[in-house]
């Protein structure tokens, strides 16, 4: 699709994240991840993450009832964010580590689970001196 005829996929507006307990997940994304809660509409709970809306939802049918894609949340200081998230009770799978050396920066990541068992990550691009 191209930009000429109004079909361009300019950006991602929303991402659906399955939650088995929307109240519990809302508390996690609001209080542990610290994302701004936009609004609640029945079993749907909406958050903002840098202009992308996250929609927490119970799966409507068994086909949709699977874990989320891994979302990589960008942070400035991954060690500090890792420590804070750990202190807030999030379960981590590993410690912050360099996952790729890019031409101008080192890409750091660390993986954790949300309250619903979804695997998520923190990422940080650390400029090489």
């Amino acid at each position, binding site marked *: 699709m191209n930009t000429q005829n109004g079909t361009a996929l300019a950006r991602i507006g929303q*991402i659906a994240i399955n939650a088995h307990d929307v109240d519990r997940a809302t508390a996690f994304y609001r209080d542990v991840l610290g994302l701004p809660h936009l609004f609640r509409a029945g079993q749907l709970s909406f958050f903002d*993450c840098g202009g992308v809306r996250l929609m927490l939802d119970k799966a409507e049918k068994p086909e949709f009832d699977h874990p989320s894609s891994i979302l990589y949340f960008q*942070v400035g200081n991954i060690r500090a964010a890792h420590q804070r998230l750990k202190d807030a009770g999030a379960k981590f799978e590993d410690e912050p580590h360099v996952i790729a050396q890019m031409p101008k920066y080192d890409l750091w990541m660390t993986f954790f689970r949300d309250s619903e068992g979804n695997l998520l990550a923190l990422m940080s691009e650390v400029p090489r001196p």
Partner: protein
Amino acid sequence: MSATATNPGTTNLGITNIGQISIIVHDLPRATAFYRDVLGLPLLFTAGNMAFFDCGGVRLMLGPASSPELDHPSSILYFRVPDINVAHRRLVELGVKIEVPPRLIAPMKTYDLWMVGFRDSEGNIMQLMSEVPRT
């Protein structure tokens, strides 16, 4: 960094945005062709058995599951388009499997939210979305 004064109970991780989303694929060349040629997203680079695309500053990482646990469909990603009917017609022309034709999903305060459900080459359900201002 210190806890914010306004939300003392809230963690301040300094999350600025979503930098990347992983999408598990079973056939990388097929999926790369779909995201590049059908969805029209810019291919950033490939690295081994992974392909990276840009979507408005968010990187999409296409690759195989690194463990059986992770081998499941993607989260539904909602791609914004300026004209949902035009975009829907184009997907149909390109042979994309449409799950739900364009429909008004929610009348918001100042706009109507329209969506179209479709499947990518790997069977993942995705959506197009468009906010149409109410006149």
